[in-house]
């Protein structure tokens, strides 16, 4: 795979500043129903995520956190309900019509989803997406700047297979944010990482959001870590939202399932 020529169904070169919703609602899910075969995952899920904040989506395993994130990216279609992202309803859009919305968002995948090309080419992918105005020199400069930002300067020519788990996460993070997007979706950004590296990743997520003023949605099973950066916490359980509030509220919540999950106690309904 290379990063030469792109399929670009009318994707704008970069998100116009006036389209970036630093205020208002970045994501809204209405009465979402989602099932995988006979297994219902999300049941009448309602969720509103304000723009310009870091939202943590937490919950026990297999509760539909990653599926919710993929709904926001248009990678999954709900069986019922509406998905509104950056001011546009996307669940009714054809795959090709999702291009302009996706051009305004970035996503870090749980498995990093790095392509079999160099680190530099991986990070450059979103910049080449339908954009004929950026010169190769400008792309290289932006990639170098972004790699330096995630503490991987000069690694452009390395292959992803030669990187450690933490380095791969940072490359994925650099790729997700390189195009100056309005919404960044992080799926388990610290999965499989040690506590120190995890905290570095969280600091990068927070630093990026504070620098751009965009919206970040972080799905994480690492409750202790993600609560240190979240402005808004949402907990899912049995396909629904069982808690919404600040990190402080989450820690102090008397709801048994929230209390048990946030504090990691063995006794409780989970």
């Amino acid at each position, binding site marked *: *795979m*290379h990063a*030469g*020529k*792109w*399929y*670009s*169904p009318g*994707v704008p070169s970069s998100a116009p500043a006036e389209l970036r919703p630093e205020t208002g609602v970045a994501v809204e899910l209405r009465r979402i129903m989602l099932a995988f075969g006979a297994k219902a995952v999300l049941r009448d899920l309602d969720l509103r995520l304000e723009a310009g904040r870091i939202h943590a989506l937490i919950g026990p395993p297999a509760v539909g956190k990653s599926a919710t994130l*993929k709904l926001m*990216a*248009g*990678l999954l279609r709900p069986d019922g309900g509406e998905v509104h992202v950056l001011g546009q309803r996307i669940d009714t859009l054809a*795959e*090709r019509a*999702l*291009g*302009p919305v*996706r*051009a305004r*968002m*970035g*996503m870090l*995948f*749980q*498995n990093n*989803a*790095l*392509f079999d090309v160099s680190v530099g080419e991986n990070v450059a*992918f*979103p910049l080449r*997406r*339908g954009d004929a105005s950026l010169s190769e020199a400008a792309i290289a400069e932006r990639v170098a700047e972004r790699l330096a930002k995630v503490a991987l300067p000069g690694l452009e020519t390395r292959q992803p297979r030669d990187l450690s788990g933490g380095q791969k996460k940072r490359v994925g993070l650099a790729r997700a944010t390189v195009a100056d997007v309005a919404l960044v979706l992080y799926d388990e950004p610290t999965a499989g990482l040690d506590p120190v590296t995890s905290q570095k990743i969280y600091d990068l997520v927070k630093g990026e959001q504070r620098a751009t003023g965009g919206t970040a949605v972080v799905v994480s099973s690492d409750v202790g870590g993600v609560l240190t950066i979240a402005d808004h916490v949402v907990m899912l359980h049995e396909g629904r939202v069982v808690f919404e509030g600040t990190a402080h509220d989450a820690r102090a919540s008397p709801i048994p399932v929230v209390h048990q999950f946030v504090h990691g106690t063995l006794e409780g309904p989970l």
Partner: protein
Amino acid sequence: MSPGARGLALPAFLGRQALALLTQIGGLALLARDLGRAARPESGGLDRVELLRHLYRMGVRSVPVVAATAAFTGGIMVLQAAPFVEQFGAKDFVGFFATFVTFRELGPLLIGLIFNGRVGANNTAELATMVVTEQVDGLRALAIDPVSYLVLPRVVAMTLTMVALVVLGDAVALLGALGVAHVLLDVTFAQFLDSALSRLESWDLLVGLLKALLFGVGIALASCFYGLRVRGGAPGVGRAVNASVVASAAGIFITDYLSTFLLP
């Protein structure tokens, strides 16, 4: 299980199998439709760099195994026929017989099966791995159409490569046949060539190339289809490769039968 339910078990099984088959045929048809859309210039057209990369990987690197198989096949063909050729004094027919069988049947069929095992299986495994490691979702999240970027160059490369490999394989197989005919039957190059050219028609070569084209398209579509619809992580990749190779092999034989029947 009640007697009534037992009586319905076989029809239910057959119904499920028929539905699964129809689902796969429908999926292949939808993929072909998406390929047609992706090939339009307004959709970005064909990525030439990706095409060249796949032509090298799938074509150039298949040459040794195809050449070796073809050389031995050509030789074995004459080896098997040699006792009868001597018995009936049919040396004048050796060149025609070897060329006719190679062009019309053995060349496309054997090279199709080798191509399916080497390139088709590899292609399915690669695409399936990309799916389970979320790379395909990664492309979609970047507003890049996986059919346009991943599938179209592979289908074009596999089709072109299959035809080119059959041309090469036919030539090598005939060299193998000529070599064995010369050693065992004392047939000269001129005799071999004259026997082939005096009886062979250009249609015989075209039928073989048409078969190669159909096999190439079939293997390419099936290998991409099974790769992209993988489910279930790493074990799913193995199942996808297995399904792709089996379906393509069956498709090769069915297509071969029908094309032989329809193209006299």
